[in-house]
């Protein structure tokens, strides 16, 4: 027998086996239907579409490493005297939560590695969700029919932050205990019921001996269950709605162009999971994160300078820092702590605007069609400018969380840093809005210019008359299409309704529409293109 026939025979046997298994499963589960439905589903390709994938994969890494940690961590606030292998803390009184975290760090094989994998993956999880949301926002991928999925994704972002905060508190070290102290202080400020809520949350006075086991249950059961449930709906809706794609030749609002799940997308996505996992693992083995053994156990009395929350809590901490002195009033014996309520209200308003933005924009445009082509950010200048203003607002708050570090590193006064950031919090978003809108419009003009007159070739030619001119090469029709295929909106007119009245809503909508679409650059039309070409000949 030759080698070739041997191969053929063995592969035949292999195929028969696979076929047998497939038949067995299908006769019991109707699996072939799922394969038929999903197997060749098309996913468009773009680097920015991978941000959501990073979030998904880092969540898987979090589940894997977190499960490992639960085998060793004990969520108890019973006080013990440490007797583990980390010498500097020997004999010190601490909670079981803290000492079991030390044991798992120093005495469990791979314990430190898994703790660091878990923490780095958590930081990446929230970061990638944030970037994914920015991608969806700036490309308008939240428009019909994806508004609901935007809200679900927003819910996941909030849950991810809650997961992060509860997890960060579990080691019961000095830093995380101070974080809880701040939460306690914020909760207590709630009008009417603050002291009671804190009392019930902590199971008595702060810190009590209940909060760690309570946070543990939230962290490993309730919140992950919610994350998984919302994630499932998020992905089902992704399948139902199919992914958006950027404009390009052949791509329309009625098709989706890309790679099928089997085999190309599965291989790329599966490989990408291992890349994300590998990068997290590499960072975890090279870069220390949250070295709780240097902080010591929680004690309400000491604290060190330069304390920082994890990055995603920074914006809230920064907002607390930016309130001027003395914002507290006592009226009729009731204490209104506006120095804490104001940040809570401002942040709530900010995140609620983020959550409902798709509905606001849909109301302003009145556009009820489905949108499957992702916008280039420049082609919707006002939306992009609003996004930039929001990012600036968030960024200033985030910077404020490091106000003391700015002061010490750059030898500035803390008062100067805070006052500057207070001004920036208000002025920054306005500047960002204005500049971004200008830039977006300028880029649109440049696109028009390119479509109409071609791109610069860097070839300078001297004409017979002595005049110098740069030669422009025309774009091909595919390039042109990428630059002209975008939606264009005109400001809505104020029109009376059926009863002949102009309502406040109509007026508001018209003025918002004017705000959005007054400055706009129309895409090049065939007529314009013809007249230009005519002029050249």
């Amino acid at each position, binding site marked *: 027998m030759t080698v070739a026939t041997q191969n053929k025979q063995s592969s035949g046997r292999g195929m028969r086996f696979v076929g047998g298994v497939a038949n067995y499963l299908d006769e019991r589960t109707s699996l072939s239907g799922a394969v038929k439905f999903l197997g060749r589903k098309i996913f468009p390709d773009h680097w920015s579409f991978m941000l959501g994938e990073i979030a998904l994969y880092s969540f898987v890494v979090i589940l894997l490493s977190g499960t490992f940690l639960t085998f060793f961590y004990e969520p108890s606030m019973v*006080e013990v005297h440490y007797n583990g292998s980390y010498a500097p803390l020997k004999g010190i009184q601490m909670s079981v939560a803290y000492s079991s975290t030390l044991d798992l760090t120093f005495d469990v094989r791979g314990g*430190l590695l898994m703790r660091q994998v878990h923490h780095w993956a958590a930081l990446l999880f929230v970061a990638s969700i944030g970037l994914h949301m920015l991608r969806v926002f700036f490309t308008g991928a939240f428009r019909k029919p994806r508004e609901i999925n935007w809200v679900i994704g927003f819910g996941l972002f909030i849950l991810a932050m809650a997961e992060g905060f509860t997890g960060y508190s579990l080691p019961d070290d000095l830093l995380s205990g101070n974080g809880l102290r701040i939460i306690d202080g914020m909760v207590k400020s709630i009008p009417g019921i603050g002291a009671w809520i804190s009392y019930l949350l902590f199971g008595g006075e702060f810190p009590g001996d209940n909060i760690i086991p309570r946070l543990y249950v939230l962290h490993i059961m309730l919140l992950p269950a919610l994350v998984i449930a919302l994630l499932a709906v998020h992905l089902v809706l992704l399948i139902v709605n*199919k992914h958006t794609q950027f404009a390009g030749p052949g791509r329309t*609002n009625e098709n989706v162009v890309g790679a099928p799940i089997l085999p190309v997308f599965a291989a*790329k996505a599966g490989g990408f999971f291992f890349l994300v996992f590998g990068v997290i*693992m590499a960072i975890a083995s090279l870069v220390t994160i949250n070295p709780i053994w240097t902080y010591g156990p929680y004690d309400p009395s000491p604290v060190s300078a330069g304390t920082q929350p994890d990055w995603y809590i920074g914006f809230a901490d920064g907002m607390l820092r930016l309130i001027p002195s003395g914002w507290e009033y006592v009226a009729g014996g009731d204490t209104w702590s506006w120095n804490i309520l104001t940040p809570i209200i401002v942040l709530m308003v900010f995140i609620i605007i983020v959550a409902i933005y798709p509905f606001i924009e849909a109301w302003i445009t009145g556009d009820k069609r489905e949108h499957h082509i992702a916008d280039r950010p420049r082609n919707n200048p006002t939306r992009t400018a609003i996004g930039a203003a929001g990012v600036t607002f968030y960024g200033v708050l985030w910077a404020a969380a490091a106000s*003391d570090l700015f002061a010490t590193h750059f030898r500035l006064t803390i008062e100067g840093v805070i006052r500057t950031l207070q001004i920036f919090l208000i002025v920054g978003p306005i500047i960002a809005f204005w500049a971004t809108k200008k830039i977006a419009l300028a880029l649109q003009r440049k696109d028009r210019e390119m479509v109409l007159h071609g791109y610069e070739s860097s070839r300078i030619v001297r004409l017979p008359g002595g005049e110098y001119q740069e030669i422009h090469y025309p774009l091909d029709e595919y390039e042109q*299409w990428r630059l002209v295929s975008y939606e*264009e909106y005109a400001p809505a007119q104020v029109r009376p309704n059926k009863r002949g009245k102009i309502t406040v809503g109509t007026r508001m909508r018209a003025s918002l529409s004017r705000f959005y679409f007054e400055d706009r650059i129309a895409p090049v039309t065939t007529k314009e293109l013809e007249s230009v070409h005519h002029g050249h000949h």
Partner: protein
Amino acid sequence: MADKSNELEVSAGSAVARPDRLQNPGFEPEHQRVTDESPAREKGAERGVSFLFLLSAILSVAAFVLNFIFPIVPGDLLSTRLNNLFVGIAIAAGLLTLGVGAVHWAKALMHGHELVEERHGTRGDDATRSRAAEIFTEANKESGWTRRRVLRNSLIGALVAFPIPAIALFRDLAPSKSPQELLNHTLWKKGVRLTRDPNGVPIKASEVTIGSAFHVIPETLGDVEEGFLDEKAKAAVLLMRLPLADLNEAEDRKGWSYDGIVAYSKICTHVGCPVALYEQQTHHLLCPCHQSQFDVSNHCAVIFGPAARPLPQLPIAVDAEGYLVAQSDFLEPVGPSYWERAR
């Protein structure tokens, strides 16, 4: 076709329709990859991917073996570090080679042409929608949901009432006392000695030199069995001695200090961090969490930052043996504000 016609009826709002807009030119001609054109390159890519997968397997085994080469020795921190470093790097390298291999396989070797799938409107087609509406109508008829109003409303009432027991169930999240009472009192009372944090050694007034600051806990804290940290979180105090000339004391508080020695709650009136940083020259206290600043020479008035109230002062005196003692508890609740605080 039905889907298409539905879509056309949908309002485009203020979108501008231009009949003379440029038309989609259709797909670009596919371009060939090097692996499509050269069988040698294809073979090379195949070999490269297999090599990466093989390397990944070797690295995973290596990570397993490295555990034994760099074991964790109890008490030896360096061994933990090395174990973390080498095992971690080997696992990471194994994962990365696996990932790169899979992606490279997809990009260089799998069928490279883009495929097209038609989209249909997200809404169900008319037949499905009318069947769904019909089902609801039938269910309504069969159950009498809208016809039997009393029945329906009583069901809604029962469902609304059903979580009510939970309110009582959750009351025991905290003890039966009310929180305000607890927040009003600390361990300090008349005659309790001021002792050092954390060792509990009493402080003699003569030990407190000008410019020095002590982190203080009440002497009785050491006897607390239950709720040690709860009591410490309220009773922590900062003790400082200022030159008498720098101390501006209010008339009614003249008797609260001793020879320039003053004691203030260490718990920030903002959100409760320990106000641990004392600036000796300016007599300012700085909270490291949100940078509120308090002026010790003026009864810890807020001079900057988000705090609204001065730190509460602990009235102190000296006992017969020369040790510093409290004259009483704090005269107001310490720490962050809450609704009933001023009552």
